[in-house]
Every structure is written in structure tokens, then in C-alpha cells.
């Protein structure tokens, strides 16, 4: 059947849905990120409870080194800014500039992951040493998974902006906007994680 969106209909009170045609995908993504954030909230709650009520065995207290995670925080915060720049550039239809910023963002993301790996390999405890250690790895690992996914998404966006009127352009910014929202979310989670895991 044909869609009903005739012009004469618009003048009446009976405006049908079709002609308004909003894009609700970002709203949907935001709702999904709320859900994703609740997963992290569960992990944080578990971590804090373990810390509060499950004392470690004697001799099992580990100092977490601060320099590397601080560097990581800075990397992610900068990457949020660079991604924002990329988005603005695309909306101004400056595709080349946008792609440059995207590449910088992806590099920062990869640098974060590399630095996270370095931290993993230099830590004095392993995954199954104690609850504290396990929760540390679960939290940072789950976050790292998000960063990995985000970096891949940035690279895909970067690839798809290669042609001036490709799949992602100033005409269709949604994929970039969605990735950007997701990236800011991942950065925000890292800041909370950094405060709870390293600073508290």
C-alpha cells in the first residue's frame, strides 16, 4: 500500500507521522548507552563492595602505579576533543580535515590500548590472584573492549568518508555522530573508572 503523506493532509489536523520523519537513532543509542552504563555501574558496585567487606589476605595489597593510567586519562580526554573537531569539520563539509581528526582520534585510542597492555604486563598480580585483582581486570578489560570497539568504529567511519559523497558525508552525519556519542561515553566511563580504581 502507498504511504499517506499528501500535502493537503498537512493543512488539516490529521498530520500523519510520515512527513515529520524525525531520526530517532541517536535517542535509541543514548538509551542503549544508559543500559551499557548500568553494566559498568554493576561492576563498580561489586568492586566497591569487595573493597569494603572482603579484606585482602595479608601481603596481598598492591599499590597501583599512577603515571601510566594518568597518561591514559589524558589520552582519552584529548581524543574526545579531537573527535569533536572531526564532527564539526564534517558538518562544515571539510571532509579532509574531518578525516585527519578521525585518524588522530583513532591513534589516541590505539595508544590508550597499547598503554593499557603495558600496564597489564607490568602489574604485580594476575587475573585469578584475588577478588580485588579479578575485579580490576574485569573492569579495565570490559572498558578496554569498549575502546577497541570504538577505535574500530572510528576507522570504519574514516574509511567511509574517503570519497567526497560517500556513505558518510555532511549529508549523512549519523554514523559519525553515533560513534562520537559512544566515544564520549567510553571516555566518561574511563574517568569514573580512573577515580574509583586508581584514586580512591
Amino acid at each position: 500500500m502507498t504511504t499517506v503523506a499528501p500535502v493537503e493532509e498537512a493543512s488539516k489536523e490529521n498530520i500523519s507521522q510520515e512527513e515529520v520523519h524525525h531520526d530517532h537513532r541517536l535517542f535509541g543509542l543514548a538509551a542503549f548507552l544508559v543500559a551499557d552504563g548500568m553494566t559498568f555501574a554493576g561492576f563498580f558496585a561489586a568492586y566497591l563492595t569487595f573493597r569494603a567487606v572482603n579484606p585482602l589476605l595479608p601481603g596481598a595489597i598492591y599499590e597501583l602505579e599512577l603515571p601510566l593510567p594518568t597518561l591514559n586519562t589524558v589520552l582519552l580526554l584529548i581524543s574526545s576533543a579531537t573527535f569533536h573537531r572531526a564532527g564539526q569539520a564534517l558538518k562544515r563539509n571539510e571532509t579532509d580535515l574531518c578525516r585527519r581528526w578521525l585518524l588522530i582520534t583513532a591513534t589516541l585510542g590505539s595508544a590508550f590500548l597499547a598503554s593499557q597492555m603495558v600496564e597489564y604486563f607490568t602489574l604485580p598480580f594476575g587475573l585469578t590472584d584475588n577478588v580485588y585483582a579479578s575485579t580490576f581486570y574485569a573492569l579495565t578489560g570490559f572498558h578496554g573492549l569498549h575502546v577497541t570497539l570504538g577505535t574500530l568504529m572510528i576507522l570504519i567511519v574514516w574509511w567511509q568518508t574517503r570519497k567526497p559523497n560517500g556513505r558518510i558525508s555532511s549529508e549523512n552525519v549519523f554514523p559519525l555522530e553515533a560513534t562520537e556519542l559512544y566515544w564520549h561515553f567510553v571516555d566518561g566511563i574511563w574517568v569514573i573508572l580512573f577515580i574509583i580504581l586508581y584514586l580512591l
Partner: protein
Amino acid sequence: MTLASSPDLSKESEPLQPKGWLRYFSFSVDHKVIGLQYLICGFIFYLIGGALASAIRIELTSPISDFMPRDVYNQVLTLHGTIMIFLWIVPVVNGAFGNYLIPFYVGARDMAFPRLNAVAFWLIPPAGLMLISSYFITGAAESGWTAYPPLSINTPAAGQIIWILSVLLLGGSSIFGGINFIATILKLRRPGLGLMQLPMYCWAMLGTSILVVLSTPVLAGTLILLSFDIVAHTGFFNPVMGGNVIVYQHLFWFYSHPAVYIMVLPAFGLVSEILPVHCRKPLFGYTTMVYSIMAIVVLGLVVWAHHMFTSGTPPWMRLFFTIATSFIAVPTGIKFFNWVATLWGGRISLNSAILFSCGFIINFVLGGITGVALAQVPFDIHVHDTYFVVAHFHYIVYGGSVFVIFSSIYHWYPKFTGRMLNENLGRLHFLLTFVGFNLCFAPQHWLGLNGMPRRVAEYDPQFTFVNQLSSAGALLMAISTLPFLWNVFQSAFNGPIAGDNPWKALTPEWLTSSPPPVENWEGPAPLVKEPYGYGETPETLEVALDKDLELGGDEK
């Protein structure tokens, strides 16, 4: 994630969809097809879960463990719980009726994200099949649907891991569905339709979806940690490794208590749709109904630890959760009084839909009363983990949600198929279900109070007779599905033609053909600002008020 806006998509993909019955096996993006997919798929799982329940009741006709091996018994009760919750009630009260009705109610042609919607449905059959096949391949999980560690870590790992995977898939499906409902209700309302003009089911689904989005991910995270404990030998919940089993319980119940509202709130919404139509009266107290739903959502998120009163929670926590839980009775009570007031002074057609709805009210009141009692720490200490809790829980989810599902099927079947169901068979179905259900579960209150714990295959011989009574009730319930199935099948072919609006209802789904066309209405979507505008404006209003005051007097 495939997110796409609705109108484009339904236009694009419509020609690709198979026609006729085949579309119910396809990756259809039509919300009505998906709704019925949910309903039929859920009902098949209901029959499987019911068969498992029958096996449990057969085992319990004698005080010794003689019908099946003990470990199989634990697998059966785990599967029964998991299937009934995650594959029958949650998908049907949310997915089936939500998908079918919500777009109609907001005046849209489809859900906000039709493809995501189809993905959400198609996660369910594989998850369910995986869960059930685990019984035949590796042995199913045997630590109950709660999967408390360390038991779930100590029992055979394969079944438990498969259980976790399928619950994760079902949780994902539920979250996708929830996001879709929130977006559809908030963003896809047709112009001119205000939030406070929506049918009550929209509000129920909005509240439910908020609960789904906020609480289901926590369960997912918890189960991921549990699977690490099983596979990677971490020690989150393993006391041998310094873990803490209580943390699991907190995280688990943070989802699983709201899960009860995820099963019951949509049922509340459906009843609010059904009662006014068959009583020919407006829904009583629309505004307070909306606020009650939201109050239940907020309170529902902060009551989880009442499942853990015997787990050694500190006194202040027990006190807080007692009070929070008790207060859920207030908004719930408001809804019940409003429904009774909706019945009062109506022209009630005593058909199957109204019978099941009223059966729901009666059962749920009993379940609610035992619920308030269970919220009291000292009361709960004695009956926690006993058949009293089993009875309470089934009064909520069977006497509550499942009765409403049946009521809804009787109410919307004409819309689904264009044909009427046989009312006499429907009344027979109600009678068998109502008597069977109460015979099965009412005696279990006594069993629990007197010393029968739940999840046992053997029990003190003094309980034999009452258990046999309960099993007889279960038999009646099993028989009750026969007239229903016969009715549904033969009416699909031979039932009287229903016409567009057999109930003379006012909500938008009835203002189109039965079954409705692909994009819901041939013309523009109707603007229904008063979905409950029934009733003859009365000179008799004064009399009615007197009668209603009388009703209030009875409560004191």
C-alpha cells in the same frame, strides 16, 4: 546495531516480506508480525515449561524421590523457572502485546527501530533452543533460576555456562525491546497526541522499559562475572578464593526483583485496556494510575534486598528494604481500587476476557497480601525459601501475569485473526484454570508455613495429602490448556467473522480492519484523545458517587 527509522524501512522492505503464514517465520519488520511471533513462540515455551511443571508435580505426589533422578529434578526446576520467566512471561507481556499494540496506541505505522525489533525477537528462539537442548547434550543447569554461587560454580559447568549464555541473549533481546518501546512511546507519537492521552498500556510499557534498560544490564554483568568464576577460575563469588557470595545476590536481585515488575506492570496495563471496553465505562482514575506506575518503577528499583533477609544482611538494611517494599503496596493498591471502581456501575459483559481479568484481580490481591507479609523481616525469616514463597510467587506471575495474558488473547484475538473465539470454550477454560490454579497453589501456603522448603524432591510424609491436592490442581491446569488450544485453532478457520471492532472499543487498534493492513491504517492514523471515552453522560452521576462512597466504606 542496526538502527533505522520506521517509515522508510517498512516501505523498502515490504515487498521483500513473504506473504501469508510464511511471514511468521521470516525476518519481518512489521510490528504486528513480530508481536505474533513473540506470542506464538512464547506459548510454545509455555507448553514446555508447563510440561516441566507437571513433572515436578508428579515427583511431589509422593514424599520420596521416585519419579526422576535427583539431579534431573534440579535441572527440571531450573529449566521450568528460566523458561517461564525469560521465554514466556517477559517476552509475551512485553514483546508480544507491546509490539502489537504500542504503535497503534501512539498512532505510528511501526516501532521506532523495526529492524532492531526483529533482531530482538530472533534472539529468543535460538536462546530458548540452546537452553532446552543443554538438557539433552550436557545436562542442564541445576542450581535453580537464581543460580546462586557457590552452587552454580560447583555444579557441572557445561550446563551452567549454556544457561548463562542463553539468559544473556534473552537479556539482550529484552534490552533492545525496551529501548525500542521507550523511543516509540516518547518519540513516535503522532502529532496532537499528548502523553496523558495515551492508553494506560503505553505508560505501563514505558515504566517497564525503563526498568528493563536500568536493571537488565546489571544481571548481564553479574552473569559475565559468574561465567568467569566458572571458566577462568576467578573468585568473584567463590568463597574459597576469597570471593563474596552475597555480592552476587545483591547484583542478581537488583535485576530480578524489578523483573517481577517487568512481568507484572505490562499486565496491569493490559487489564486497564480490557476492563473499560467490556464494562463500557471509562478507566477510573487515569492520572493516579499513571503516577502509580511511575511510583512502582521508582520503588521497584530499591527493594531488591528483601530477597536476602536470611542472608545475613545488616539490620539497618533489613529495615530499609522492609519499609520500601511495604510501600509498593500503596501504588499497587491504588490500581486495584481503581479497577474495582471501573467495574462498579458498568455494563459488564461476562465474557472470557473479563473473567480472566477479574480472576487476575482476585489472585493478585492474594499474592499482594502475602507479598506485603513477606516484606516484613520477622515474617520472612520463617517462610523464606519455603513453599509459602512458591505460592506467593505463582499468585503474582501465574495468577497475575498469565491470567492477563489469557484475558488479552481473548480480547485481541479478533484483531489478530479477524475471527471470534468461542465464548463457551473460553469460559470453560477460565473455570478449569481458575479452579486448578487455586487448588494447586493455595495449599502451598500451608505447606510452607508448616515446614516444607522449596526446590525439594522429597519431603516429610505428613505433607503427602496436601501435595497430592496441589498436584491435582496442576493436573486441572494442564487439562485447561486443551479447550484453549482447540478454541484457538478451530476459531482461526471456523470462528465467526469478527469485523473491524467487535467490542465497539475506542482505542486506535480497533479503528482499522481485522487483521490490520501492513501500515496499520489505510488512511492517516486516527487521533484518539480519549481512549476511554465510554459511558453515557449521566444525570445519574450523583447516584454513582453514592455507590462509590459505599465502596470506599467497605475498605475501612
